[in-house]
């Protein structure tokens, strides 16, 4: 299994319309080619950035999708029309850790969240496997005790990227109060200090982003009652 991680630059004030046409037009077309949506998120808080995560079976499927993107007449039209909504996109191919949940597992499990924490770590050369194993063995259990669940853990395998990047995505609460509670629990936990001290041997920095699960057709998204509340707020 492989994942495609896309960073999209959105034209201001077109986001809702972009999500709408993604759901009605783009997603059904690319799913026929084997590209399955895992999550489409607004980056919190950045006005013009979205992140999309897709699952594919293998490298050969990615070749097929690349051909489709390059040569299919429908896709050529879509690419031109979508300029109204997005001005740039940059993608990476990610290889999942053995313990990273697949889309099938995500669909069956309870991974709904308003906020997801997106962590991009630049790992020291030669330390990627050790770091990924340590996330499973040490970070996943302690993060669970704070109320966070691992949604995915991946290393970069191709695309537009820097060497030795490791991505992890976690549920991070339904409300900001939920994130506050997670943060309080983590800060009081001596295990976090131990983890940070150890992790310094594998990576020097982590870039954090909040992903907002606002898109109704995205498998990773906020709980239904929150989606309805957002819908009502926008309608007013």
């Amino acid at each position: 299994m492989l994942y495609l991680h896309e960073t999209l630059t959105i034209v201001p004030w077109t986001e809702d319309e972009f999500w709408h046409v993604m759901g009605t037009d783009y997603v059904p077309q690319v799913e026929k080619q084997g590209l399955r949506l895992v999550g489409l998120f607004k980056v919190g808080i950045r006005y013009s950035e979205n992140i999309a995560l897709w699952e594919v079976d293998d490298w050969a499927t990615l070749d097929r999708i690349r051909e489709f993107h390059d040569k299919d007449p429908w896709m050529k039209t879509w690419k031109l029309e979508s300029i109204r909504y997005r001005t740039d996109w940059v993608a990476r191919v990610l290889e999942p850790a053995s313990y990273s949940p697949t889309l099938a597992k995500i669909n069956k499990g309870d991974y709904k969240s308003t906020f997801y924490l997106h962590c991009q770590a630049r790992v020291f050369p030669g330390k990627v496997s050790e770091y990924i194993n340590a996330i499973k063995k040490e970070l996943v259990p302690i993060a669970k005790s704070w109320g966070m669940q691992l949604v995915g853990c991946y290393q970069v395998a191709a695309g537009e990227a820097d060497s030795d990047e490791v991505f992890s995505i976690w549920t991070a609460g339904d409300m900001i109060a939920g994130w506050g509670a997670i943060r309080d629990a983590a800060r009081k936990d001596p295990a976090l200090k131990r983890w940070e001290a150890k992790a310094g041997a594998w990576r020097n920095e982590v870039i954090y982003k909040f992903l907002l699960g606002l898109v109704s057709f995205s498998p990773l998204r906020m709980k239904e009652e929150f989606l309805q509340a957002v819908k009502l707020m926008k309608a007013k």
Partner: protein
Amino acid sequence: MIYLHELLDVQPGMIDEYTDAAANHLVAGWNRYVKTVGFFKNAFRHREGFALWELGEEAVSVDSLGGFTFKDLDGMAWQRLALKYRQDWYDSWIESVPFCPTVEMIKKRQKKGDFTGNALYYWEQTKVLPGKMDEFLKSMQRELVPMEEKRGMKLAGCYRWYGACGQSGEITSLWAVKDLAHWGKMRDERLKDPAFQKWAEKAIAWRRESSYKFWIPAYWSLLH
């Protein structure tokens, strides 16, 4: 040999049109000054292009580019036309390292099947630590290139900074890759190969970090 390395920021949605415009309105005039090595679009970013041109052995070949830019009618017409397609570009003059193939060598090797029929070119920019350049390049030539070529990736170019935009210790390499399935297979083999792992461990002493891109060659690119 000196080369011109251009990263082009193309207007959204215009990369294919820009590629056609370069084929029809740039190359004939431009090739009076330079040889085309490659022209590509980014496989993972929809508005970036990359052009690589061979200039010549001497610095005077760089000076002669001014003729195209400021005096040549084809050059001046192209620059006006190109405004429609590109927003910005980032140019470096780079020089080949001793084991880098030239345009002539690429053409000869194409007759044997190299650098032709590839869906992708893998581009890597490595930052070598101060004072470690000679060791790194020697090891790249003797160990890394034979290992990777045996796995199926062919070295199409390897360069260091010569002038204009760049960073200290930068080495840019370009490799032919059949397609992503081929890349995936090579990557798996590489991760399992003890010789590569040994080389990667050794290389920690020479290089800090690298970044990479994957390029789709244009239909008129020499490297394809």
